[in-house]
């Protein structure tokens, strides 16, 4: 008795998931873990803030940054979720042009958001070591900014791959992954904006 089989073929055949793909589940648990990371940062921030009484602490003689400009920046980031959504929808219908345009637009809006954040950092009256207010401010927004940066890079990679025609109606997991990631980063920002600027 002799069997000749390809290992990949077997795995694919026996386990090709009904319903969601492996990658989808993987992304969900990865993002869940990321969410816990941000939850920890937010909890740490609230802990110090409650203990300090006044916020920023009175000894630091600071006022919190105005939410207006960052609010507009927030709207830009939120808006970027729409082209992202349409890009992912486009490729499920086989519309590669729509995908490319959507990805490019999302990356562009993401980059504008980062530019806004950089502008704000430069013009703030306080730095990360000024006091605990600055420490919390730059940590929370900074970790998020790092995530957006990573997201933009990820989007650009997908954009280039899309230009080269790497994606098709049936094979485009990277697009789904970047979409999930991007919506996640957006959602986190809403919470961070509300806690750091509004609350």
């Amino acid at each position, binding site marked *: *008795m*002799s*069997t*000749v*089989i*390809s*290992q*990949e073929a*077997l*795995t694919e055949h*026996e*386990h090709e*998931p009904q319903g969601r793909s*492996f990658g989808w*589940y*993987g992304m969900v*648990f*990865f993002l*869940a*873990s*990321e969410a*816990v*990371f941000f*939850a*920890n*940062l937010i909890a*740490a921030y609230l*802990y*110090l803030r409650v*203990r*300090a009484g006044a916020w920023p*602490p009175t*000894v*630091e*003689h*600071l006022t919190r940054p105005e939410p207006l400009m960052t609010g507009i920046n927030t709207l830009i980031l939120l808006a970027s979720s729409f082209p992202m959504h349409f890009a992912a929808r486009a490729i499920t219908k086989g519309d590669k042009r729509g995908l490319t345009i959507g990805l490019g637009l999302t990356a562009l809006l993401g980059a504008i958001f980062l530019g806004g954040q950089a502008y704000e950092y430069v013009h703030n009256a306080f*730095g*990360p*070591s*000024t*006091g*605990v207010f*600055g*420490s*919390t401010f*730059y*940590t929370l927004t900074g*970790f998020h900014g790092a995530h957006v940066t990573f997201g933009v890079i990820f989007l650009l990679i997908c954009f280039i791959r899309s230009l080269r025609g790497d994606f098709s109606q049936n094979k485009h997991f990277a697009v789904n992954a970047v979409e999930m990631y991007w919506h996640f980063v957006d959602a986190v920002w809403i919470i961070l904006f509300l806690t750091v600027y509004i609350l």
Partner: protein
Amino acid sequence: MATENLWTEHIVLQKRPRWMKYPILAWITTTDHKKIGIAYIYTAFIFFVLAGIEALIIRTQLAVPNNNFVNPELFNEAFTMHGTIMLFMFLMPMWTGFGNYLVPLMIGSRDVAFPRINQLGYWLLAIGGTILALSLVIGEAPNVGWFAYAPLTEATATCLSQSATILSQAETAAAAAASAAGAQGCFSAGLNVDVWAVALSVLGISSILTSINFIVTIIKMRAPGMTINRMPLFVWMMLVTSFLMIFALPSLTAGASLLLLDRHMGMHWFQAAFQGDPLLWQHLFWSFGHPEVYIIILPGFGMISEILPVFSGKPIFGYAFVAWSGVAIGFLSFTVWAHHMFAVGLPLVAQAFFSASSMIIAVPTGVKIFNWLATIWRGRIRFTTPMLFALAFILQFVVGGLSGVVVSVVPVDYQVTDSYFVVAHFHYVMMAGSTFALFAGIYYWFPKLSGRLLDERLGKLHFWLFFIGTNLTFFPQHILGLLGMPRRVYTYPSGLGWSSLNFMSSMGAYILAAGVIVFVANWFFTIRRPATATTDPWDAYTLEWVTTSPPPPENFVEIPIVRSARPLWDLKHPDQADWRKRAPRQPVPQS
């Protein structure tokens, strides 16, 4: 069984680059879960020996009063590295290694869900471990205890803020006083703490990736008919452990990041002089740290739940209770962290809450112990080496669990916290518990991994050395703690009544070392013998014993169909198959 020689003619076609013919490169680039599993196990064992040597340094230093076998600086590095490595580079990677090897086999799968992410997880672990090991070589090993409490971990430079100008004069003076204290050695300026924070963040990310792989593999790749309530209990516990890892490790990564920001960006998260708070560190650390101790024990529970039934000749008693109490422990483990902080002056309500929740978590733990006892009750017990380790596990884990309940009583904890009593508690759960479960597992699965059975006589010698050594080392530490000996002291004067107990404890440590040497010898001689182990040398119940020892690259020729929690029993005893005993609740897939 008839399937014995099936594999010899079995060919797997794979596109293999030419350079893969060098075995070393094949190992480095492998995405095979079995090879990665073995790489984890060997790596973890090497670090076990390293951390064991550190333990011997500690115990030698403490063997007699007023000793100066090593200097105090090295002593600090020894206990910090011992704890850090034993948890992060020994027990965690061991569980990941066995999980990698066994989970796909146990659920009847050919592979894991994300072979490459799995590989990345291993290499991140290797990087983290290398950072830790190199720090010893360059003499900058972490030296602040495995929980690295702030403000001890803060760098001196950041205590004097560059922007002190915005503070009032009084506060500037306070800050200057604080950093003057730092200059006198209260804070950690060297690389030691950075090594700790960076290495543990890397290891944390590695564990998160690995866990994602485990979860998706277990959820999506089970053999036909293996419903969630027919999964082997080791798989159950790896599933719960993986969830604990993805939800607990981010607290550690977040804490370590804030610590690094304090140290290198001049931030003030944990600096009281700037409205930061050192206790915030403790909250972040222990909200990871307590789930961590269950990450360390649950896979051991799983192994014990596989081994006891096989050597008792019975199915596990109360399968569902064993499985779901593990889930309960998983949830509860997130609600107890501040029992490590009773002495810091928490509000009374908080103390009451965390004391009660800690006692509640002992309930599902107790449930498991009764299930195990009922499993061996009236069984046809075979006293093999794995079974001996498993039985000793039950006994010793009960001691550790009980001392845990004792320290969760707040007034008692005030008295014994940071004393050797706590050291005794956690060694009864982690050494006498987890590590015994691990060795039970090593002896049990060694034939599956290598095709060879470890020698039983050397195995039993190893067991008795470990049993005597462990109890001799750690039991006296309960008394030392009650007599007031603080943990982490460099030495002690004579005449406090501590000397003979410390001496006993150190002798126990040497006996343990002898046990490890016997084990290594056993491994060394066994691995040289021809691979003659049969498919199912222990007359076991689960799917990993359906395939050859060691299994072929694709694990199974034909994926088995599962009808109960003991598929191999069903196969061997069709007339008494478990699924015949009661009407199956789930529909049985037709072959």
